[in-house]
Structures are given as C-alpha cells and as structure tokens.
C-alpha cells in the first residue's frame, strides 16, 4: 500500500536507481552494519484516512473536554474565549507549514507577525524589548533567572514561595544545569544577599493574589544589586499595572490565555521581555525592522550572534525551534481583542471571580484563605477535603478547582474567567453549599 505522502512510484524508483547507478535500494544502505539492521517492529497495521479518523475520534471520545461543562480550574492553564479569527489565521498553511524565517525575502509573513508580537508584548508588559517567544511560561521564567545569573555573575536564584510550584520545579531543573543554587523565600521574609542574581515573583501569584507593594519589592531587589523578574498573567495586564512600571528588569509569562486552547498542557507560549540594557543577553529569536535596496520596509531575524547557530557553546541559550504558531495566535488574539477588548476580558474575569468569592465566603464552613487584591483565582478553605468536594462536583457535571490542600488546609483554588456565566457560578455556589452541608 503506497502512502499518500510518498509520490514515488515503482517506475520512478527504477529510473532513479538507474541514474544513481545501483541495482536496488538495499545498496544505498550498505554503510549500516548488518548486525544493526532491524527486523520486526511492533507498530499496529497502517490505517487509511477514514479508519484513522474513526480511531482518533474514539480516543478523543474517551475524554471529557471542559468546554461542555462549567469549569473552575486554573492553576497555570486557563479556559478563555478564543475568537474565530485566530483559528482562521493560524490555519493558513502559509503560516502553519512555513519553516523558520532564515531566508527573509520569502518569509516576510512570519517575520512581520513576529515584529507585531514583540511590539504587543512590549506594550502589555511596559518593557523595552521582547523576543519572539519561548516554550512556555515556566521555561521562560527559568531562562530569565539564568540570564540574570549570567548578567550579574552571581550564583544564587531567589524565588518567592508563592510562584506556581511547577514553575519553581522548572527553574530548579535549569539551575541544576548551570550549577546555580535556588532559594525559595517566604513573602514576609524577603532577605536577599549579595549572592542573589535575581528575585522572581508571580503576579498574580499561584493563589491569585498580588503583592501588596510590588514597587517596594523591586526597590529591595535592586538595593541588593539583583534583577527583579516578574512572571505576569497577560490577561491581568489588560487591567493592572504592568511590570515595567514597577521596576521589573525582566517580564515573563504564559501566553496560552491569549488565543490558545487548553490542549492538555501544550503547546503553550513563553513571553519574554526585558530592559534595553539586557538586549544582547536575551535568549530566543528577535526580529528587527530594516529595508531592502528599493527602500521597501522589511523584517529580518537580527542579533543572531546571541544564538546557538553562531555562538554555539557561548550562546545565550540553546533554544532553536520555539512556539511561532502559538505566538501568531497570541498576536491575532491581541489584535482582535484590541485595547478595549482585552480590558473588557480582564474586567469580566475580575468581577466574576469577586462575585464567586463573595458568595462562597458566605457559605457556612467555607472561608477565603487570603486577604488582599486578587484576580481570576482565589483559594477557598472547604469544610471537607477538596478532593471530596471536586469528586462531588464532578458527579454534578462540574469541573471543580485545583486541590491545594498541600499548601492551605482544605484549600481549593478556584478560577473564574469570562467564560463562566452567572448561572454557572450560582449553580456552583448552590452545589458547594450542598456538598458542605453534608459534612
């Protein structure tokens, strides 16, 4: 059975083998020692397209996607509205099947959209320069910490304990490579030493809350001679003060909320922006604007001497392929939502989360775990273990929150985006009341 993806016919192969000067294709593999020639492999038999669709649909059918249900789960991945124009644009095969834009003359589509993306990330974060994107928010944070170490020459990384635990884990993995130490500091015990290259914080933090005084933290970090790294939720930046305005040296974040589906955890998108003075230390690709001999405006990959293909072991990072199509989705999302739309999304998240929090806090047995300003997520102390609460909610056709009892006793992290209706929230409150009542 010839694959639809292999055009060569037997006749083609004959002609080509003759031109090459061999009798059979086996001769072309002569360099492989016979003891390494493979026998049988255990793949299932090949499927035709209709069979493939049936098989994969069945697999998909064994899952319960959150779109069909009320869902209050956050924790680093968010169900936000994705305008149809996003899938329309990233579905264009001229974008989807294009290679990395090393040949600028025939890649202006990709290059110009990257320039747009960089511009938008700078506007969102109020930073000077942004790159074309990194793998995800967690690895972007890790690379920011490595960059801080490289720039400062210091060997310790400080993380605020309220950073997403998975993000902390990724920083540790990357730090291990470079032999850097990682210190996790509590919010009320911020003591930085001269050995710290940076302090990394998350805004809002893993529990949905903001630093009471981010500017003061920034000042303390700078007083210690370290870099201030902020991981910010991009939707929150539609409403709240951006990191560039309160002293951040590097702003990173997770761009999945900007036009990408949940996709069971990936592919997502790392946002990375920093101050002008760190430009040449920034990892990742960067696109710059220039012109051709006819003075037409064009875009090119620039400052490539930072990267692995030129600097090799002295590169700012080993990153090569990143997340271009996901960055394109984010670009279209931000252009589609625009100045008003992003603010509106942020406000909806804010109001819905506060409405839910207020109502749940009034239920007997439930209380809010933290005081202070929060956005999109908050932690509720439940009268029963959160695992039981979630199970009961699932039985009622609701995806509950994230069990954070590891950090907060009987703590449940709930997330509200613009996708949750008032009706769904009211239903959640009723169900929580019932579930709590049967303690």
């Amino acid at each position: 059975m010839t694959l639809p993806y292999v055009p060569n016919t037997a006749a083609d192969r004959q002609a080509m083998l003759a031109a090459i000067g061999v009798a059979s294709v086996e001769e072309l593999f002569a360099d492989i020692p016979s003891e390494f020639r493979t026998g049988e492999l255990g793949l299932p038999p090949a499927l035709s397209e209709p069979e493939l669709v049936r098989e994969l649909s069945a697999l998909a059918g064994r899952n319960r996607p959150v779109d069909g249900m009320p869902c209050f789960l956050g924790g680093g991945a968010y169900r936000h509205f994705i305008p149809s124009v996003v899938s329309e644009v990233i579905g264009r095969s001229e974008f989807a099947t294009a290679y990395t834009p090393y040949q600028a003359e025939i890649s202006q589509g990709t290059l110009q959209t990257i320039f747009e993306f960089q511009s938008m990330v700078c506007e969102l974060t109020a930073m000077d320069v942004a790159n074309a994107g990194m793998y995800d928010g967690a690895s972007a944070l890790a690379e920011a910490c490595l960059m801080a170490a490289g720039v400062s020459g210091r060997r310790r990384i400080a993380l605020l304990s309220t950073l997403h635990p998975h993000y902390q884990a990724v920083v540790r993995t990357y730090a291990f490579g470079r032999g850097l130490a990682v210190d996790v500091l509590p919010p009320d015990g911020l003591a930085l030493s001269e050995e710290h290259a940076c302090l990394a914080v998350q805004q809002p933090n893993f529990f949905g809350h903001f630093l009471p005084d981010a500017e003061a933290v920034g000042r303390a970090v700078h007083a210690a001679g370290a870099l201030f790294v902020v991981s910010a939720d991009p939707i929150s930046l539609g409403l709240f003060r951006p990191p560039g305005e309160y002293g951040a040296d590097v702003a990173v974040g997770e761009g999945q909320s900007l036009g990408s589906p949940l996709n069971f955890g990936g592919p997502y998108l790392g946002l990375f922006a920093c101050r002008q003075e760190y430009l040449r230390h920034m990892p990742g690709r960067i696109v710059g604007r220039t012109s051709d001999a006819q003075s037409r405006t064009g875009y090119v990959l620039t400052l490539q001497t930072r990267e692995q293909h030129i600097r090799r072991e002295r590169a700012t990072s080993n990153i090569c392929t990143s997340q271009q199509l996901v960055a394109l989705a984010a670009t279209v999302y931000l252009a589609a939502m625009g100045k008003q739309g992003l603010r509106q999304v942020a406000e909806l998240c804010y109001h819905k989360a506060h409405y839910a929090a207020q109502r749940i806090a009034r239920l007997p047995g439930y209380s809010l775990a933290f005081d202070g300003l929060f956005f999109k997520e908050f932690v509720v102390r439940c009268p029963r273990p959160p695992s039981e609460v979630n199970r009961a909610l699932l039985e009622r056709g609701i995806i509950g929150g994230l069990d954070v009892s590891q950090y907060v006793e009987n703590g449940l992290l709930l997330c509200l985006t613009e996708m949750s209706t008032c009706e769904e929230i009211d239903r959640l409150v009723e169900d929580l009341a019932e579930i709590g009542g049967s303690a």
Partner: protein
Amino acid sequence: MSSGPKTPDIGARLTFDLSKPGRRACALPPCDVPAAELPPPQLLRRELNLPELSQVDLVRYFLALSRLNYSVDSGFYPLGSCTMKYNPKVHEKLASLPGFTGLHPLQPLATVQGALALMYDLQRWLADITGLDAVSLAPAAGAQGELTGILMVKAYLTDRGEEGRTRVLVPDSAHGTNPATAAMGGFEVVTVASDSQGNTDRQALASALDDGVAALMLTLPNTLGLFDPNIGRIAEMLHRKGALLYGDGANLNALLGRARFGDMGFDIVHLNMHKTFSTPHGGGGPGSGPVVVKGYLAPYLPTPVVGKEGEGFVLATPERSIGRVGAFYGHFGVLVRAYAYLRTLGVEGLRQVSDNAVINANYVLARLRPAYHLPYDRRCMHEVVFSGSRQRAKGVHTLDIAKRLIDYGFHPPTVYFPLIVDEALMIEPTETESKEALDAFCDALLAIAREAEEEPQVVKEAPHTAPIGRLDEATAARRPVLRWRREAGDES
C-alpha cells in the same frame, strides 16, 4: 512616469498603523454578575496601546502577510537536517477535535484517559522504533530534548560520584544546539574532528576520551548525511571509558524501520516530531522533542511519564527524576499529529519513508555532481552536502546561489552548515517530494551553475522576483528597531 497606484509597502503598515479608536474585531457579552469595586487607580494601568481593528481589516491584513510566505504547501524546501516533509491535513482536523483541545492538564485523570492512552502508546512506539526502553514526551523541542538528555547524564553521573566527568565531546560537524546544550548543562565542550571520509576520526576520539568525559553527542546519520559504519566501535570505546553515548535524532528519517539507535549502543536519544514525524513547522514552532533512553536511565526521566495501573493510565514520577522541564506534560497538540502519523505509516510505512528519502537524496547527488563539488565522495543517506567552492572561483558564493534559487521558485537549501564544509550547501529532499519536483530543483541548480560561469552578476544580485529584495541585515543589527513606535520613525 506613471502616477498610478504604487506597490504598497506592506511592511510599513502594521496593525498599530491600521488602528482606529472605536473599532473592534470581536464582541464580548456584558458582565452578568454584580460588578465588584475596582482596585484603586494606582494599581491599575493608565493606558494600553493595542490596536483597534474591525474584523475584515484584521483578516485582510493577516492574509496579505500569509501570501508573502513560502511554505511546504507552496513548494519544496530542500533544507538539510530539517526534514521539511509534507504535513498531512487529516492531522490538523484530528488535532482540533474538542476531545483533545478542550482538555485541561489538571482535570481529573479519569476524565482524560483517551489522551493518556494516546501518550502511552506513542511512548511505546517511539521506544520500539529507536530500540530503546523508556520515553519522556515532555520536552518542547529538539533543543529542550537535548537539554533533558544532558541533564540526565549529569544526574546519573552525579549519583555515581562521578562529578569529575566535566567534558562533553561534540563532533566538528555538530548542529549549534549540541555545544550550546552541553554548556547549559554545565559541561565543557571539546570538539572532535571528522576524518576525510566524513566519519568521526577515531584517533581524535581516542585521544580526547579520558575519565573526564561524560558523553559524546553524535548525530547519526551525521550532518553530512553520512552513516558512520564504525558506530558500534565508537559506542564500545565510550562505554569502556565509562562515558555515555548521546544521540541527536534529527536525521532519523534515514533510519526509520531500518536501524535502531539502541542496537548501536546509544544510551539517550532525542527525537524531533516536527522533522521525522511530519508535524508542521509553524514558522518556527511548536515542535516537540521526546527523549528515549536505555532502561538504566529511566529513573532519571523528567516528570511526569504516562504509566499504566491496571486498566487505567496514570501520570508517574520517575524515582530519580531530573524534575520538570515544562509546566505540564509536553506538547500534546503536536503529539496527536505524530501519533496519527504513526497510525498511518504502520511498520511497512516506516520503510517506505526511509527508502524513498534515501533514494531521493542519492538521486539529487547523482544529478548535481557534474556541476557542484562533492566534498565527501561516497553514498549519502537522506541528505547530501555539496560545496559551492567551484562557483566561488567565479566570485559567486553559496549565499548568492541560495538567493538565485528563490527566483526559480525554490526555498534555498541549508547553507554554510555544517561548518566543516567550505561554502556548504546541504540538501534534504525527504520522501514526500516527487521525481518531477526533484528534477525541476536539480535543473534549476544546474542552470544556476551555468549562470555562475556565464553571467555571474544575475546570481550575485538575486533574488530578483521575491516579494522583497535582500535586506540590510547590517543596519538591523547595528541600530536595532525591534518594536513598533507611535511616531512611525525608524528610531527605536
């Protein structure tokens, strides 16, 4: 002089320039809950400079940009070591199924058993194809797969008290990510020369190989498109010295269904879903770089891996795991496509891929060798490296040849890599190109070789027909303009 409509300078008008206050491309519902009190103004942002466009302008803008791009769907990409094969469209449809896209990574495992089953099977098949034992699907790209592998080497050696192994050996033909990765792993990089046949020079390897070496990173076939028949001996040399053999699996397309890394003695290999396994390049990602390892290294894999417990699938943490490399489990959306590809190929399909990939590359070699210098005069595997040195004698560089190919309707091959070949031109046809496409490509390169002899200027000033001419990269690097600015000047 005609005063009619000029060709628009598309690059000069971004969404920000097309923006008009009050326009919108998407409407949102009003707030259906009582509004909470907003935080005090000093905590809020005062302005947000994002564009405001209507939907029609937005769509026209991005579609106009898309038309400036070359892509696999518009033509052949002969890029060596990139394996720019055709991206099957059914994969796009399947990867968009709500039963896949709508899954939150933290939702109850009982509600995502289909997704876990897919990942579990993919893990198994990648192990089988490579002849290795355990798999992590977590790394987001080849480079992250390399980093994962190198960190596993480091963790393994540290556990055995062998922190003294501080060096990683890398061939002079290696892709730049290899030394960059070794450095990120805290290792010192030592380059090992290739011999006149294009294989790893075993003398050089022997002298570099001492008790301070942690691993050798090898690409096989290498970046010259050549299979080193001494691979078994090389693996033995390393293992006898207590070092590991790391495999860069970028060129797996030549070996699918034919030979397995594990059988040859590799300990760790990373794979590229966006190369060998047909997932689309996206203009620079997302890819996916799973890591496959020998059983003794399984405990060090990043967390989590998909395991089976009775009839159900679970997420498990390997006992000595190097930790997380990403927030969640890897690029599931990309893995769905790779899974669909393997279900389409079956065992027989694997061989069809490697057979045709290797035939195609050797055919290109045969057709071009009369006109271009072939630095390593032997059969290639799935890619062939020529040198533009003969043309340089007429003042025509490989860069010029590459740009002239654009006028003939082709994307240039990989140029100036690997570094050990002067004026390198690396061509990988893949199995998804037809003989006619290859003939057209070879005809073009032969025509350019003639032009280099007879009218070199036309090559040196190419491209003449692309949407834009050669761009001023020097100014772009000297005085970088990296974002849009309101006054639409050229100052940053």
